[in-house]
């Protein structure tokens, strides 16, 4: 009981400090993780085995970590997530340096002849597609940067386009296992594959994307058309080729990206784990960029990796393990079951909507990491398929984050990039468009879960 109280206090303090933003969030989770190891496992539980299980270093030495269908240990650091994200970060850094994203954006803009409404639709589609494979922060950052540049030349307000890009990046990320961090954690923790996500969350995301495409086009078409007409004559925009500084580096980075996509799509068949895929794409990126751009660029890429986020994940997993091993998460699971009185439909609704509402205001990564043991316990107690709960959790955390400017990292980065470019986006303007859009996709997700699984 005492261990439970200590674990809850540490976790709540961690959550509050993340919200208050006084310290870098990786310091907060690492500090919290250290306290869990020392106070909860060391002093309260006097369990060295809990510490070792939580640190989970043994995972690296298991063949299933690298190859074969695997399921992570129930508590502790999910190293598969950490290694995969690190690998993808290196690849994305390489792609960015080679000018891949900028080239892609400018090429699409040229294809639609720099007309604003087709550009809006294209960028929404590009945002959703790229976010299926790489992190939505990078997608939004590059798209927002090009949008601001085009807005300056074509004289339109970039905010509508940036809002649509942010929303679609979060939407696209929900479709696959590697799109959004909560999905990576859910996938690696519960042993799902890329195609499991495509077949389950991907289907409803495709429907939502069409709805959102119509919604945002309806919201912004008049404003964008008016700007296009006011601008009148032809515009001179940067040529896509200007994005490429080193053709060999560009082509090789693009090939690595395609290999990563192919490996992710086929990983159920090849039985390569996402951790192994992360290592492969990182190694390939470093080798090809070393050969095409020299050692210096390899060092630059390694420096560009967001180590803070990786440390944040490690600390977070330890903190969540504190709750799990002390049985706190079972209490939450029991509470949800008692509220729902064993009604599966009510459980799914609770998981979906509580995840969505919570994710709209707090970081969805800690929430998803915390909820995985909860849904596992519910599924075991109710004797139900964990899949429906996993998809409800995934959709809730990924899509709910769209509602506010602080709901997801991509929202923060997109609104910040817009502000730095001279177009600040406040809560009012953001929520005016994104809250209704979030309600639309959440309603669609609710209907989908009911029709397909219940």
């Amino acid at each position: 009981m005492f261990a439970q109280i200590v674990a809850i206090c540490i976790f709540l303090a961690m959550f509050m400090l993340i919200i208050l933003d006084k310290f870098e969030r990786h310091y907060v989770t690492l500090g919290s993780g250290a306290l869990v190891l020392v106070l909860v496992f060391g002093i309260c539980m006097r369990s060295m085995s809990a510490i070792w299980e939580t640190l989970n270093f043994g995972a690296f030495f298991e063949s299933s970590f690298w190859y074969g269908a695997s399921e992570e240990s129930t508590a502790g650091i999910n190293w598969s997530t950490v290694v995969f994200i690190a690998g993808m970060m290196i690849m994305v850094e390489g792609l960015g340096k080679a000018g891949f994203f900028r080239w892609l954006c400018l090429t699409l803009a040229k294809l639609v002849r720099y007309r604003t409404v087709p550009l809006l639709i294209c960028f929404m589609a590009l945002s959703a597609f790229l976010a299926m494979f790489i992190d939505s922060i990078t997608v939004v950052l590059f798209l927002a940067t090009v949008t601001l540049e085009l807005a300056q030349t074509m004289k339109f307000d970039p905010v509508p386009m940036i809002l649509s890009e942010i929303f679609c990046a979060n939407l696209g990320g929900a479709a696959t296992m590697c799109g959004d961090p909560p999905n990576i954690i859910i996938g690696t923790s519960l042993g799902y594959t890329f195609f499991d996500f495509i077949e389950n969350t991907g289907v409803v995301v495709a429907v939502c994307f069409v709805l959102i495409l119509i919604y945002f086009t309806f919201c912004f078409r008049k404003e964008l058309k008016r700007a296009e007409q006011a601008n009148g004559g032809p515009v001179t925009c940067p040529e896509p080729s200007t994005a490429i500084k080193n053709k060999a580096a560009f082509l090789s980075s693009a090939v690595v990206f395609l290999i990563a996509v192919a490996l992710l799509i086929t990983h159920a068949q090849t039985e390569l784990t996402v951790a192994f895929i992360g290592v492969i794409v990182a190694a390939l990126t470093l080798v090809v960029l070393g050969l095409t751009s020299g050692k210096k660029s390899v060092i630059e890429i390694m420096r560009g990796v967001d180590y803070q986020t990786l440390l944040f994940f490690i600390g977070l997993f330890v903190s969540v393990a504190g709750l799990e091993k002390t049985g706190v998460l079972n209490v939450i699971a029991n509470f949800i079951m008692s509220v729902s009185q064993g009604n599966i439909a009510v459980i799914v609704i609770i998981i979906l909507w509580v995840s969505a509402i919570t994710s709209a205001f707090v970081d969805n990564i800690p929430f998803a990491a915390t909820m995985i043991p909860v849904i596992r316990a519910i599924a075991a107690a109710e004797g139900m398929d964990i899949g429906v709960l996993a998809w409800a959790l995934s959709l809730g955390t990924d899509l709910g984050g769209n509602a506010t400017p602080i709901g997801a990292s991509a929202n923060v980065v997109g609104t910040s990039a817009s502000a730095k470019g001279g177009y600040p986006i406040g809560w009012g303007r953001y929520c005016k468009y994104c809250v209704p859009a979030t309600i639309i996709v959440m309603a669609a997700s609710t209907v989908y879960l009911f029709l397909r699984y219940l």
Partner: protein
Amino acid sequence: MKNQIIIALGREHGSGGHYIADMIAKEFGIKLYDKDSIEAEIVSDGYSEELIRKMDEKPVNFFASRRVGKYSNSLEVNVAEKTFAMLRSKAASGESFLIIGRCGEQVLKDNPNLISIFICGNQQFKLMRVMDKLGVDAEKAIEEIKAVDRSRKNYHNYYCETKWGDARGYDMTIKSDVLGCEETAKMLIAYIRSFMEQE
């Protein structure tokens, strides 16, 4: 003799900081950057006068904002960063100026022509000035002083390594009530003049 002088002046509410800053700026014939002039400098299509006025020198609302690396959705942060960029650009252009608050002493700390001052005062002195200026009773004036100083402190401490009003973060901290505003300004002018005469 220095060709450029940048004065960063922090102040407690009611200490007469703005009044003293005005006297110093006039004496040296340099521009004074305060709320109005900063607003005029950074206003643009996206950043309206209303928005800047609302967010300028305001602390971050932690429950409505989030940071991801160097990115923040907070309008307070974005307006502050725009202000800091404007100050850096002015300093780099060689312009001499006086900046009131806005973390000037930290933002421009690497500039050799910067001199930083913090003006404080005893409670009674500040109270009388605020009551006189706003035409309010003592109770309201105390509340106003507390609220404004808390806001300035939170704003400053969010962006700066040093603490607001801590003498170690400034070249000089001075209580304006000891000599009165005019005499304090004269003393500071002499101090700044000596600083300018240095190589």
